[in-house]
């Protein structure tokens, strides 16, 4: 049953990723990309690794994903495609062969557990880390803006 749900979530993620590639509108592509990341986060949540799910949901979908969607809505181009669609079939066949090979040679145990507390006993460290990173990025952006306008 668990494998079926993971398989379902994986298929959903791949379908949305394909949607991001097939659609020619940047805005829809960004929306499909966000849905893909949501499905990836759902796989983590299903396995009970909630800390990573929170990181993906808040940082990737909440922050970066929303900015990407807004950016794609601003620069909403309809792009012609340069690559033949047959390459997708070839690429996916190679991907499946690689995935089966790697999967068969990877050790997999049945137990999933979240041991985040063993590494970081306090989530405040994580929050402090995020605030420091954001401040650094903001300072860099302000510095570039000032230099650009000068």
């Amino acid at each position, binding site marked *: 049953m668990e494998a079926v749900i993971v398989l379902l979530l994986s298929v959903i993620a791949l379908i949305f990723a394909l949607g991001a*590639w097939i659609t020619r509108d940047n805005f829809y592509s960004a929306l499909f990309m966000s849905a893909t990341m949501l499905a990836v986060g759902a*796989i983590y949540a299903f396995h009970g690794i909630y800390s990573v799910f929170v*990181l993906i949901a808040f940082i990737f979908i909440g922050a970066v994903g929303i900015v990407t969607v807004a950016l794609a809505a601003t620069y909403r181009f309809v792009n012609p495609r340069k690559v033949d669609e047959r390459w997708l079939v070839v690429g996916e066949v190679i991907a499946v062969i690689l995935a089966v090979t790697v999967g068969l040679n990877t050790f997999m145990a049945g137990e999933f557990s979240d041991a985040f507390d063993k590494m970081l006993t306090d989530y405040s460290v994580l929050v402090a880390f995020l605030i420091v990173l954001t401040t650094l990025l903001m300072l*860099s*952006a302000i510095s*570039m803006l000032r230099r650009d306008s000068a």
Partner: protein
Amino acid sequence: MIETATSIGLLVIGYLIATSAKDVIRLLISLELMFSAVFLSVVPLFTNPSLIAEGNAITLITVFTSAGELLIMISAIIFLDRKFRKTTVDVITTGGDEL
């Protein structure tokens, strides 16, 4: 195994979007898809009890690093538009070779 297969599938689709991209917004989207593939590839680490701490550390560093890279790329896109008034990457006219 399912996660690994999905990870490789997402990576391939990300590469396809990157190769067919005609503007930097698409490149950003393809990068984010590739990063989601990286996250999925870390899942098997959590199945081995002796590697869970390493899995957490790798995921934490990956999430913050990739988020930082993407934010820098978003800033770069905005500056590109301000400087050249376009975000397309059909022809490189400044720096590099003309393709």
